[in-house]
C-alpha cells in the first residue's frame, strides 16, 4: 500500500493529492453519477461571489489545439444559494470541500471570507485573484504583489479556514506575487489559472468569443504551468498546488516531481468525467512500481544536473 495522503496545512489533510480545478467541476453534484466525491483529494467549487453573477454573453468557448479558450465570466449562483442548495450535497457526499471565491473589491472578498468562516462543511478557501474574464476584480489584484498581499492579509483577518491563493500566469514575475502572498499569510498557493488568449474567425472577420479574449486552458498550457510551479516551489515555504493541462497520472506526477504538494485537474474533466479517479489510481501504481511507500518521498524529488 502506498500512502498518498498529503497535508496542505496541519488541519487540511487530503487522502490523495488529486483535486478538481474551480470552474471545471461545477458544484460537484454533476459528477456524482460518475465518481465518489469523497474519494477525491478535494472538490474545488466554481468561483463564488457575494451576489449571483450572470457571466458573459455567448459564444463563451472555443476549442484550440490541445486546449480551449473560455470566457464564461465567472457566472455563479452567489454565496447564499451555494450555502443553502449546494454545500449540503457536498456535505452529504462527505467530500473535502474547497470553496473558490472572488470579489470586485477587497471589502467583498473580506465579507465572503467572513460568511464562509461561519459554515461547517467548508474545509478550505481558495482566493481567486486571477480570473482574466471579468472587468473588475479578480486579475487586477493578481498582477501587483502589493495589492495581492493586502488582499490576502485582509482575507486572512476574517477567517481561520485554511487559505489557498490562486495565482495568475498573466504576469511577468509570478515568484514575486507568490512570495508576497506567502508573507501576507496565505497557507498555500495554487497555480496556474488560465492564460489570456484570443481566437478570430476569418470568414466573418470577427472575434470568436463575445468577450473578444478568453482564458486558455488544457494540455496546451502544461509546460508553462510546470515551469511556474517549479519556480514558485523553490521560492516559497508553503505548499504549492499545481494546475494546468493535467490529463494523466504522468502529468500529475511531473507536477509533484517539480515540487507541487497537490494538483488540480481542470479542462480534462470535461472530456473525461472520471479522469480524477484515474489519475489518483495511476499515481498510486507508479509509486508502487517504484517502491515508494509515501508520496512525500516523491514530491519535489526533481534532480537538476549541476
Amino acid at each position, binding site marked *: 500500500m502506498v500512502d498518498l495522503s498529503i497535508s496542505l496545512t496541519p488541519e487540511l489533510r487530503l487522502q490523495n493529492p488529486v483535486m478538481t480545478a474551480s470552474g471545471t467541476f461545477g458544484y460537484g453534484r*454533476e459528477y456524482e453519477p*460518475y465518481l465518489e466525491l469523497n474519494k477525491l483529494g478535494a472538490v474545488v467549487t466554481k468561483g463564488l461571489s457575494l451576489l*449571483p453573477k450572470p457571466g458573459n454573453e455567448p459564444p463563451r468557448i472555443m476549442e484550440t489545439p*490541445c486546449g480551449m479558450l473560455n470566457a*464564461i465570466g465567472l457566472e455563479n449562483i*452567489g454565496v447564499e444559494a451555494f450555502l443553502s442548495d449546494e454545500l449540503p450535497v457536498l456535505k452529504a457526499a462527505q467530500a473535502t470541500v474547497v470553496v473558490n471565491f472572488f470579489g470586485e473589491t477587497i471589502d467583498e472578498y473580506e465579507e465572503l471570507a467572513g460568511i464562509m468562516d461561519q459554515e461547517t462543511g467548508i474545509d478550505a478557501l481558495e482566493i481567486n485573484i486571477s480570473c482574466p474574464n471579468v472587468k473588475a476584480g479578480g486579475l487586477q489584484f493578481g498582477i501587483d504583489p502589493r495589492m495581492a498581499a493586502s488582499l490576502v492579509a485582509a482575507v486572512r483577518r476574517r477567517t481561520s479556514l485554511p487559505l489557498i491563493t490562486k495565482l495568475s500566469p498573466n504576469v511577468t514575475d509570478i515568484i514575486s506575487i507568490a512570495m508576497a502572498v506567502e508573507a501576507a499569510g496565505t497557507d498555500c498557493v495554487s497555480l496556474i489559472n488560465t492564460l489570456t488568449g484570443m481566437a478570430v474567425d476569418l470568414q466573418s472577420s470577427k472575434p470568436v468569443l463575445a468577450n473578444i479574449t478568453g482564458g486558455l486552458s488544457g494540455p496546451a498550457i502544461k509546460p508553462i504551468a510546470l515551469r511556474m510551479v517549479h519556480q514558485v516551489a523553490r521560492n516559497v515555504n508553503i505548499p504549492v498546488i499545481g494546475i494546468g493541462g493535467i*490529463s494523466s497520472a504522468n502529468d500529475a506526477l511531473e507536477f509533484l516531481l517539480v515540487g507541487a504538494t497537490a494538483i488540480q485537474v481542470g*479542462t480534462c474533466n*470535461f*472530456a473525461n468525467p472520471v479522469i480524477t479517479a484515474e489519475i489518483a489510481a495511476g499515481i498510486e501504481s507508479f509509486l508502487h512500481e517504484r517502491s515508494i511507500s509515501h508520496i512525500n518521498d516523491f514530491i519535489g524529488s526533481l534532480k537538476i544536473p549541476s
Partner: protein
Amino acid sequence: MFLFHSTVLRLTEITPDTFRIRLSCPENFVRQFIPGQFVMVSVAGPSHLDPLLKRPFSICRLRSDGFELLIKVVGRGTEMLRHMAIGTLLSLHGPLGNGYPVKIIKNDSRIMLVAGGIGIASIISLLDYCLETAYPLKNINLILGARTSSELLYIDEFRQLVEKGLSLSIATDDGSVGHYGLVTDLISRQLQDVENNPIIFSCGPMPMLTALGKLAMEASCPCYLSLESRMACGFGVCLGCVTRKKTKDEKHPWVKVCQDGPVFDVTTLML
C-alpha cells in the same frame, strides 16, 4: 447516462459531406433513450489530446446492435470521424440532454416535424418514436428544408411513408425540389389551413428556428425547438453552451443547452 467505449460498426457515406456511423452501446442505453437526446463523442483515440473535447451529435436511430449518428462534415473533428475504420474504439458519453417531450403527444394530436439540413438527424429519432408507438401517420406533417435536392436525406424512405398517410412538404433554397424558398413560407401557409393547431417540433439552423418560433407563437401553437451550441462538457458543468431565456431576472438570464435542453419550449426562450 453512461460513459462507455464504443466500436465503430459501420460507416456509410450518404452525400459528399454527410455520412452515417453506427456505434455499439451498452444494453440499457437503448432503454434510457428519449428521442432528441445526444451523445458526446471523442474523435481522437484514447490518450490522444487533440482534439481535446468530445463533440455532440444527436442520436439519430436506434439499431439492434447499437445506434446510428448522421453527421455533416464541417470541421476537423467531423472530418476525422468520417475516416474512422470499422472496429475503431471511441469514448462516448450519453444519452445526454432532455429530449423531446414525447409524453405530450396524444394519439389525436396533430404534429408538425420541421427539419432544416442536418437537423433531420434529431427529427428522425422522433419520427421513429411515432412509428414505433403506432401514432397515426396521417396526423404527422413532416417538413424538410435544404439548400438543394441532393442535401435532402432519407427522402426515399419518407416518400414511402407518404403512401401510408404521412404528409411531406419540402422546400429548397434553389427550388430544385418542392417549394422554392424557405421552410417557414410553407409553414406559415399550412398554419393558416389547419383547424386544430399542431404541436411543432423542430431542429435546424438557428435562423430557421427563430423564424419558426415566431410563427408558432403568432399562431399559438405549442412549439419545441432543438438548439445547437458549442459544448465543452455536454453535462452542465462548463457553462459554455448557454443561451438566453425569456426572463426579467437579469441575475439568471441563461439556460444550458446541454442540460436544460437541447429541446426548449419556444415560449421560454429569448429568440
